[in-house]
């Protein structure tokens, strides 16, 4: 059927070389019904206008878009581009009017050889995007003949990255000038054919955008190739098209581009429309003059895929007094022998095969303070994880971390993004419980135990401790000591264990030794003697979330 269409080369000094050719072989993969349906749709199009569009460099895919010929077009993804051109060719060269007006010269060149297929020029609207023509990341020109082939290339990239996925979200980013190109073509068509009877029915003001058309072409074959579904997902496959040389043709639009952050495509539409409309009225404007700037190169395409961050949370305990919470390096030298962050995050990240990790904890403790009891809630954010760990994998991670003895994790599990909010809330509001080894300058009396025990919800005022005054604002902060309890130590009269529960943000060490009187009241002032703190341990971070179920 397709073989009947004659190939012709239209060449003319002022016009772009157009080629509508067709192979004389039947199409490789089916879609005969689709082609037939396309033909039906195309039959209704105005031949002269279509020829006109071809002559100004618009590709067949864009022509179909502008005239609202779709549906069938997108459903069969192995239709070759040459097939599409052939269908259009039928329309044009079977039109009597065109035939009458076409010079013999245009018909003189016939191609019977299927080898000499000349590629159509790069579309002046979509810059080759819908023609599946682009520069790959090695700057090599690539032409795909059908959506299926493009999907195959994308699929290869995804498979190489090795993500374990059930579904994917598909994103496309295109150069903004494409929207301008389309607007320019629209205005050209309106000014030339606006009064034609078919115009308002066939050439509608809105049509599928280049971006949406590309998605329609690619999403289904891609989903099939990867054997997963396209649906809202944390895993994103992204096509980013960029065009170095295509610059905005109007200063007006340039101004708009500079002053606004825009998503390539849609948002520009109405702005550019207005700007071009305004300029159309102004005779001296150049922007809508056609031919559009000749496009000699296609876009560069970057295919990327990534998973949005996953969060693994739990509680950690720190048994060492020489391990800081986060990596701490001064002048190229590490403080302490390790950090909780690196022990936990550094174990989780490779098990997820992620690119990076970030460690977040609900509060922090000094390097020389142990974190005991129920543990401190934390979240590890893993970027671009290739695998989301299973329960078994999580158990392995827990075991691996716990083997190091310095740090232990509990209740480790993958949490959703709500874990984040839980943590932030816990930092500010919650109470913390401590145990300190305290020395006083005189023997402990029973009365002391009672006095201390009796103090409930005691307000203290803390000036910014001297040890952090160099990097924090000099303020006086009011804090609450919820309760305290002294535990005597068998062999000592001046040492004891002080258990206390305080408001988040209280500096415990300073509450014991007084920080030169800048924290008041303090243990020394309450007991009427000097007090020093030897050791501090955090025994509980009261937070409801992040517990074993």
């Amino acid at each position: 059927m397709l073989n009947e269409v004659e190939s012709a080369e239209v060449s003319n000094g002022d016009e772009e070389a157009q080629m509508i050719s067709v192979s004389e072989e039947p199409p490789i993969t089916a879609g005969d019904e689709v082609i037939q349906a396309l033909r039906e749709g195309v039959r209704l199009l105005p031949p002269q206008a279509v020829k006109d569009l071809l002559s100004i460099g618009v590709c067949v895919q864009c022509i179909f878009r502008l005239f609202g010929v779709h549906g069938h077009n997108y459903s069969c993804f192995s239709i070759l581009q040459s097939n599409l051109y052939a269908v259009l060719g039928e329309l044009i060269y079977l039109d009597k009017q065109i035939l009458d007006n076409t010079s013999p010269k245009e018909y003189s060149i016939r191609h019977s050889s299927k080898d000499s297929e000349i590629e159509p020029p790069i579309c002046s609207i979509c810059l080759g995007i819908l023609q599946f023509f682009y520069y790959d990341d090695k700057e090599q020109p690539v032409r795909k003949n059908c959506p299926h082939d493009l999907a195959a290339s994308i699929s290869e990239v995804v498979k190489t990255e090795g993500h374990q996925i059930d579904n994917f979200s598909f994103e496309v980013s295109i150069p903004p000038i494409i929207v301008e190109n389309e607007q320019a073509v629209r205005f050209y068509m309106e000014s030339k054919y606006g009064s034609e009877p078919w115009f308002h029915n066939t050439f509608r003001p809105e049509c599928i955008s280049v971006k949406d058309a590309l998605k329609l072409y690619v999403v289904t074959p891609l989903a099939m190739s990867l054997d997963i579904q396209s649906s809202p997902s944390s895993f994103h496959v992204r096509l980013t098209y960029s065009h170095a040389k295509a610059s905005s043709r109007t200063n007006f639009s340039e101004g708009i581009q500079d002053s606004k952050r825009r998503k390539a495509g849609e948002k520009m539409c109405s702005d550019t429309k207005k700007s071009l409309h305004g300029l159309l009225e102004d005779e001296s404007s150049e922007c809508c003059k056609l031919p559009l700037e000749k496009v000699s190169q296609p876009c560069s395409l970057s295919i990327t895929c990534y998973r949005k961050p996953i969060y693994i949370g739990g509680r950690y305990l720190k048994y060492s007094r020489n391990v800081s919470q986060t990596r701490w390096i001064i002048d190229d030298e590490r403080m302490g022998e390790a950090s909780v962050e690196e022990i936990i995050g550094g174990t989780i990240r490779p098990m997820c095969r992620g690119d990076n990790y970030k460690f977040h904890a609900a509060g922090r403790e000094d390097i020389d303070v142990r974190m005991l009891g129920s543990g401190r809630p934390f979240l590890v954010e893993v970027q671009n994880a290739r695998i989301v760990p299973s329960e078994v994998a999580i158990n392995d991670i827990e075991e691996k971390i716990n083997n190091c003895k310095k740090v232990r994790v509990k209740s480790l599990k993958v949490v959703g993004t709500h874990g984040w909010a839980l943590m932030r809330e816990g930092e500010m509001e919650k109470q913390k419980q401590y145990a300190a080894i305290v020395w006083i300058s005189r023997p402990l009396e029973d009365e002391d135990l009672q006095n201390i025990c009796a103090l409930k919800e005691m307000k203290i005022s803390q000036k910014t401790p001297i040890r952090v005054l160099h990097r924090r604002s000099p303020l006086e902060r009011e804090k609450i000591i919820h309760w305290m309890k002294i535990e005597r130590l068998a062999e000592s009269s001046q040492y004891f264990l002080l258990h206390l529960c305080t408001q988040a943000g209280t500096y415990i060490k300073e509450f014991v030794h007084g920080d030169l009187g800048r924290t008041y009241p303090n243990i020394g002032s309450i007991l009427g003697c000097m007090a020093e703190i030897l050791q501090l341990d955090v025994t509980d971070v009261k937070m409801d979330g992040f517990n074993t179920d």
Partner: protein
Amino acid sequence: MMNGHNSESDHTKILEDEELQRLLVPDVCHLPLTPPSAVDSNFVCYFAPDFIKPGHDQYVYRHANGLCVIGLAPMHVALQDKGGVTAVDFNVGKFDRSGIKVTGKRKRNAQHFEHNTALCKVCTNDNSYIVRCCVKGSLLEVNDRLIKQPKLLNTSANREGYIAIIMPKPADWLKIKASLIGPEDYKNLRALS
């Protein structure tokens, strides 16, 4: 109180509590009889004997973060007067030092003082003495508790009776450090036990 399905978590909790107790309670025989004070643990102590004027012994406690706490050394003349210190007045020089409000991490509004700028006047029954910065830098804080409780200087000049906190630039610190002496040398100098 152990019913069927709770007993395991209760049991775990008990074990955890026992473990916690074991971790918390220290071995007392490993603890020092008298531990170092917070000042000794966190600061390096320097002394400036006869600072500008004879008998005006001051101390400079320098923290690892660079901040310096300034105060009266044990043999400062003011502390030897009969009756000890009776009043402290920060209104010396051009303005009242106790009125400065330093704000923010960058310590804006801090006054930049020279090493011999006056910080305050310490009064006894018979005399008054000027206390000076000792270190060139930004004045972050004066101990305004001394206004209401000047006797702190008599009981704990080395702790709650500190005079001020100054933030010197690294270069300025090095300059003054050369003229300061350590605690041992100060003790020997003043023939203290």
